[in-house]
């Protein structure tokens, strides 16, 4: 059984060098509607579990080849349509929403900074419930203060910021102008961080965190076969 695996959407322009080979060496196809391009491949479905990790890297490479040249809207791995008609119909139905987001995000990239506690640094205080909660509260305040200091240090670079708290720390997503990725890294590294915390910086990534809700969860009402 085969399906159409979708990689990303982008605004088409003559100078773009598009990838020709995708996951599992499948040829990459372009579905076009207006100036929107959507990249996809006809793949054997479901994926061979033995090469799932390799498929993930190949998927990433397709998206990043386009992203290095222009803004993209990435799809999550395993977004598939039953057939090319459903794929094309999806492009037509969501074209304007996708193009609006691509226009808004055309000159920016997403950088990320995760601030997280060093688990082994401070032994957990189990002497009482109160002591345990107080220790957790101190750690949380410290993490929040560091996240705020990082955001303040990035204010001159940030077009937009999103912060997500998770059980593994605070994740800060920042939209910065394309080409200013090193400025971002330097600004983050200049912020002192308490000894009990650590941080990790990554990027540039496509601005997936900043997509509009309609694009993140697009309409597929008229599309048979979207999976």
């Amino acid at each position: 059984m085969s399906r159409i695996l979708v990689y990303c959407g982008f605004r088409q322009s003559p100078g773009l060098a598009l990838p020709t080979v995708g996951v599992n060496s499948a040829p990459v196809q372009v579905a076009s509607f207006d100036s929107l391009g959507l990249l996809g491949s006809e793949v054997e479905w479901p994926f061979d579990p033995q090469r799932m990790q390799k498929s993930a890297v190949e998927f990433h490479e397709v998206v990043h080849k386009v992203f290095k040249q222009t803004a993209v809207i990435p799809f999550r791995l395993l977004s598939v349509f039953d057939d090319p008609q459903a794929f094309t119909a999806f492009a037509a139905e969501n074209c304007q929403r996708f193009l609006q987001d691509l226009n808004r995000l055309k000159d920016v990239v997403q950088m990320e900074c995760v601030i997280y506690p060093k688990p082994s640094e401070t032994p957990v205080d189990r002497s009482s419930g109160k002591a345990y909660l107080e220790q957790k509260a101190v750690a949380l305040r410290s993490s929040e203060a560091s996240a705020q200091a990082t955001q303040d240090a990035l204010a001159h670079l940030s077009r937009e910021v999103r912060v997500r708290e998770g059980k593994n720390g605070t994740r800060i997503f920042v939209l910065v102008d394309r080409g200013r990725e090193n400025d971002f890294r330097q600004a983050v590294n200049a912020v002192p961080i308490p000894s009990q915390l650590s941080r990790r910086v990554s990027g540039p990534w496509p601005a997936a965190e900043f997509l509009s809700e309609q694009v993140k969860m697009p309409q597929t009402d008229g599309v048979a076969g979207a999976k």
Partner: protein
Amino acid sequence: MGHGLRTLLSLMPNDFETLETLGGEDEVSLLEILDHVLNSGVVIHGSLVISLAGVDLVYLGLNVVLTSVETALSNLQIEEKRRQK
């Protein structure tokens, strides 16, 4: 748990190596790639429906792996700190 999930989980602990992206100027870890391709971007509406079809079960499995990727990323960060010491 889908076969895909089992495969990913079994591969993760030994795959903390750093990959170079196309062009080579940026380095990203395999786990960061997995985190982004599975956890960021457009979700096609119907893909979250769980059904008895094999396809959807695989997708479900890879949704479940997202939590594990978060945990694995945290472990990676700890491991890197240990190496630096």
